[in-house]
């Protein structure tokens, strides 16, 4: 139908229209009640599988809750938490978690920034590069962790072979799993590999939203590309940097898959012969589903939750300060 055609207004009732009264109620239901039905699934599912477990976790943490040995099950007050305070396993795991967290987050975000800066050019095949750096993001963590577990093996591992090429460890190959630092580094490499590309895209997206005249104005001062990056680009994308810092804090402190599968026998959730790379999430798994002591595992979860809140808060503050934000 051409735009100039006359469109006759429909005067007759639509066919099959329900009687007026019924239609009124239907309309009322449709506009007043139905929207709530549309959003109900989210709230219902979140209540059952998100909020309730989190609250119920607190209840469990105040009880002795053993899966098999049920005789002693019951309220124990803060016993689980006092036990936690003097549990060297927990504090060791906390140190490991933080060590791996720092080693995996700082390089991750800095390298992502560099890569985003590289991508923030007029490039041939821009989409190709962007898709390419997402390969680690889609690769299952379990699969890539297993590759790296082989990569970092002491005998005939590729990592040691690369090291020997630059003249390191030819007589005595490095046993990555044995040492504390070497195992942390190996795990940090897995985390970095997985998340650098993803974060780079987040930064790139923010960089491309910076108005071009900001750079033109700054050019009067003759800022070189390097100063341009640190003095203009980074402060301008500060909200996204903050977002990634918080995201990687939440993710990093709950690190589970990489340390699990780095073990020579993952089923035991040991985190090394001496637990030198066992993270808190791994310890929770061990306590909960090997020792079957759910009450204590719940107490650890709450402790970890509080730690994450505090660290995320501190990191957010520090990022704001460094970024010179208001």
């Amino acid at each position, binding site marked *: 139908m051409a735009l100039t055609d006359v469109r006759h207004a429909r005067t007759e009732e639509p066919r099959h229209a329900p009687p007026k009264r019924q239609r009124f109620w239907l309309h009322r239901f449709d506009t007043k009640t139905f929207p709530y039905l549309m959003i109900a699934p989210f709230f219902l599912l979140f209540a059952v599988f998100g909020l309730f477990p989190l609250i119920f976790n607190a209840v469990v943490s105040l009880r002795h809750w053993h899966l098999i040995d049920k005789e002693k099950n019951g309220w124990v007050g803060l016993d689980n938490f006092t036990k936690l305070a003097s549990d060297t396993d927990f504090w060791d795991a906390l140190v490991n978690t933080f060590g791996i967290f720092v080693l995996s987050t700082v390089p991750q975000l800095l390298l992502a920034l560099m890569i985003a800066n590289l*991508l923030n050019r007029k490039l041939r095949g821009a989409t190709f590069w962007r898709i390419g750096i997402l390969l680690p993001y889609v690769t299952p963590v379990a699969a890539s962790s297993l590759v790296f577990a082989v990569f970092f093996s002491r005998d005939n591992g590729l990592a040691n072979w690369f090291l020997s090429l630059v003249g390191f460890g030819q007589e005595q190959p490095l046993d990555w799993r044995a040492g504390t630092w070497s195992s942390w580094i190996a795990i940090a490499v897995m985390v970095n590999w997985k998340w650098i590309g993803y974060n780079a895209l987040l930064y790139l997206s923010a960089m491309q939203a910076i108005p071009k005249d900001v750079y033109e104005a700054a050019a009067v001062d003759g800022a070189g590309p390097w100063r341009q990056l640190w003095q203009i680009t980074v402060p301008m994308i500060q909200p996204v940097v903050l977002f990634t810092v918080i995201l990687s804090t939440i993710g990093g402190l709950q690190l589970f898959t990489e340390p699990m599968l780095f073990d020579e026998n993952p*089923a035991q959730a040991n985190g090394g012969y001496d637990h030198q790379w066992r993270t808190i999430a791994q310890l929770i798994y061990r306590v909960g589903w090997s020792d079957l002591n759910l009450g204590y595992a719940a107490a650890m979860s709450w402790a970890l939750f509080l730690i994450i809140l505090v660290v995320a808060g501190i990191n957010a503050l520090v990022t704001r300060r460094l970024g010179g934000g208001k």
Partner: protein
Amino acid sequence: MSSRLLSRAPQDTPGTWKSYLGLGVILLVSAFPVYWMFVIATSSDEAVMSSPPALIPGDQLMVNLREVFTMQDVFFTASLINSLIVSLAVTASTLFFCSLAGFAFAKLRFKGHNVLMFIVILTLTVPNQLGVVALFIVMGELGWNGTLLAVIAPGLVTAFGVFYMRQFIGHAIPDELVEAARIDGALTMRIYWTVVVPAIRPALAVLGLLTFVATWNDFQWPLITLNGTDYPTSMVALSDLASGNYVVYRRVLAGAFVATVPLVVLLLVGGRQLVRGIMEGALK
């Protein structure tokens, strides 16, 4: 002259050979572990244990795959089917419920919609993993532990999805279009199917990809609830392959490679959408 050059915004500055070299190296590092997974998956024990380690694919892929698929107590074939069922169910349901809720929040006026949307955003910050102990008990009460339901149910609709859909629908669909359909006598559900869904196909593709990838790759919760049962997902089966006193690398990585292939295919097919989805997500 040089200050003129520098006055250009980075995104208008053409890449130099150094940029391409840098990107090439990054791409190599990104792809190498996946490539090497394939190399080991196609190698014999001798090739894996040789020094220097194999860097070129061998011809043992079929042998290794046969071993993986016939391993006792690993249920590898079933695990792939399970992963597919779980990922498809979660993805389909997430797309439906999130777009429905997103539509309501973006275009319908009902009491308390601002407060409710604020709650949705607030729940984004709750780290769900911390409730796993209690979630395990809840699933136990429901009798779902060890079944695929335990993995599917918590993922059926996500706060991120609702939020993402609300943003997209808010921009993509003019209010007048919804009004016009309503004056024509269409009910909300009909407007959803005939007006909203056709207009948000790109957003559905993005959210679908993100959800599928995340669900397929999920490890911790499936391990907790499905480990030791006859219904593992492929990630749990991988952990089984890698456990035990004597681990055969070529077999483990052959399994890892099989579990990775669907996602690489997804990246090749939907990479453009995935990139867009992640980049758009950053701005909102």
